[in-house]
């Protein structure tokens, strides 16, 4: 039918979708060339949320990077915290205590649950399923309560420290978690009932945004989107960090990489993450949560109050910052969207010389034109939602 359109001298309709458009989360602009309803061409313009993450990191101390990492992938800030801390620890060459590892795993997985819930919820919302959205927001609210209990903030957690954590698990955390998970599972199954088998939903997402595995790899997909294509690559399994190798969990994979697969993978990962948290809580050992290397952390209050050398040293670390040895490392963790890599360069001073983040949703967004050409304009909605582009992470 496009031939007719050409005969009719149909000028193509070029519209700006975004940046301030409900589907683009305010941070992307799609320049869509339409022929009727079909997308002839799609150009993605990002950078609307570029706030100079790297420059800010380079101008602060190693510690001051933590709040900035919170705001990278703001849907799962704890994973960013952990990733950065792990990278710095690798740079310095220290290993954190067992308990710390477990708590970090718990924190990461809670964050992942919140992330996937938000993603599925937002996807549902934009497809018009407002109720499913609110059920997951409700569940996320409960998970956030846990996170708040743990870190003191709902979104911008700033919880992990180099060589340890800010604080230990609070009292009653385990019991509260189990309670919350019980309710979360109810809400999860409600959403599952509302969406997974609903033909209206399936019609919208199935066979849209398909990506063959080879191509997905070439585009640099990672995370749920790659797993949806059938490639079981998960950093937690491939290069287990922390104590993931002791956890018993499965990596859900899809078949064709369409949006339905991405959705199913995410739904399943929520379950798996809950399992991990429960296991970690079960196995949680006692002991310290911080490394015993006072050089790399801010001094404890007891020492500061009582020992003058500690106080002086404290002043030094705060003002000059801790000083990892010169060198460079790259460390990847599995964030909500895939491989979140930190590439740190230290020149031996108190400030990071370079603090690069490999944003997992960056290549995903870059593949939008590939996934969208020749599809209908309405297909942008689920596809873009399911790649879960997070402005803070993509634009930094």
């Amino acid at each position, binding site marked *: 039918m496009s031939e007719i359109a050409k005969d009719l001298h149909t000028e193509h309709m070029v519209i700006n979708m975004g940046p301030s458009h409900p589907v683009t989360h305010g941070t992307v602009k799609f320049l869509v060339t339409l022929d009727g309803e079909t997308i002839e061409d799609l150009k993605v313009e990002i950078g609307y949320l570029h706030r*100079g993450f790297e420059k800010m990191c380079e101008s602060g101390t190693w510690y001051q990077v933590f709040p900035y990492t919170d705001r990278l992938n703001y849907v799962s800030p704890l994973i960013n915290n952990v990733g950065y801390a792990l990278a710095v620890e690798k740079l310095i060459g220290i290993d954190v205590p067992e308990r710390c590892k477990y708590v970090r795993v718990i924190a990461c997985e809670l964050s992942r649950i919140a992330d996937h819930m938000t993603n599925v919820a937002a996807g549902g919302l934009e497809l018009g399923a407002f109720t499913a959205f609110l059920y997951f927001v409700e569940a996320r609210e409960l998970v956030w309560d846990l996170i708040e209990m743990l870190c003191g903030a709902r979104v911008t957690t700033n919880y992990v420290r180099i060589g340890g954590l800010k604080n230990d698990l609070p009292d009653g955390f385990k019991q509260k978690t189990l309670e919350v998970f019980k309710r979360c599972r109810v809400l999860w199954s409600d959403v599952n009932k509302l969406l997974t088998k609903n033909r209206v939903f399936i019609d919208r997402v199935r066979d849209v945004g398909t990506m063959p595995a080879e191509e997905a790899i070439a585009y640099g997909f990672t995370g749920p989107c790659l797993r949806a294509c059938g490639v079981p690559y998960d950093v937690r399994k491939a290069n287990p960090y922390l104590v993931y190798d002791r956890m018993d969990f499965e990596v859900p994979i899809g078949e064709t990489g369409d949006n339905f697969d991405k959705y199913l993978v995410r739904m399943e990962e929520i379950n798996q993450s809950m399992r991990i948290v429960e296991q970690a809580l079960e196995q949680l050992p006692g002991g310290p949560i911080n490394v015993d290397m006072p050089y790399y952390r801010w001094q404890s209050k007891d020492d500061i109050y009582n020992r003058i050398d500690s106080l002086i040293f404290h002043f030094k670390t705060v003002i000059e910052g801790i000083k990892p040895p010169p060198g460079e490392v790259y460390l990847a963790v599995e964030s909500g969207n895939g491989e979140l890599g930190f590439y740190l360069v230290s020149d031996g001073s108190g400030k990071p010389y370079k603090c690069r983040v*490999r944003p997992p949703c960056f290549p995903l967004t870059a593949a939008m034109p590939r996934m969208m050409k020749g599809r209908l304009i309405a297909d942008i909605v689920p596809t873009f939602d399911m790649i879960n582009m997070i402005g803070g992470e993509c634009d930094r």
Partner: protein
Amino acid sequence: MDASVTLQRLTERFGDSILETHSYRGDDTAVVKKEDIVALCTFLRDDGKLLYNFMMDLTAVDYLGREPRFEVVYHLYSLRYNRRVRIKAGVPESDCSIDSIVPVWIAADWFEREVFDLYGIAFNGHPDLRRLLLYEGFEGHPLRKDYPVKKRQPLIGPIN
């Protein structure tokens, strides 16, 4: 040592274009000449013993006051062998460009644009080398060490 299989094979094959190799903290690193980057990457991708099919990350570092001033850093991952490698190529300020590896990994497209945007390193043969994160009309490259953090260039002029 298993970790250095990659580096071994690379030195075997591209002996003279590898300037330096090391495995600091377990990260295999090879510093290469920038002229050979495409050939090297193609080899890394296609060689049966390496198969680095993921271009995980591409960035640059500005070593102000050192020669070459910039270093373009590639992080590769091989799904098949579960291995990672870091390739670095120096780019001098006087000839601030390097060959694009988009033909090798399509994923490099935006990464290269980003580096171009923030560091001003041109990628020869890139299909669409424009600014990515900042807007047209932004002057300079903010991640260079000599760009002040607070130097603002507001886009908003008089309305219309």
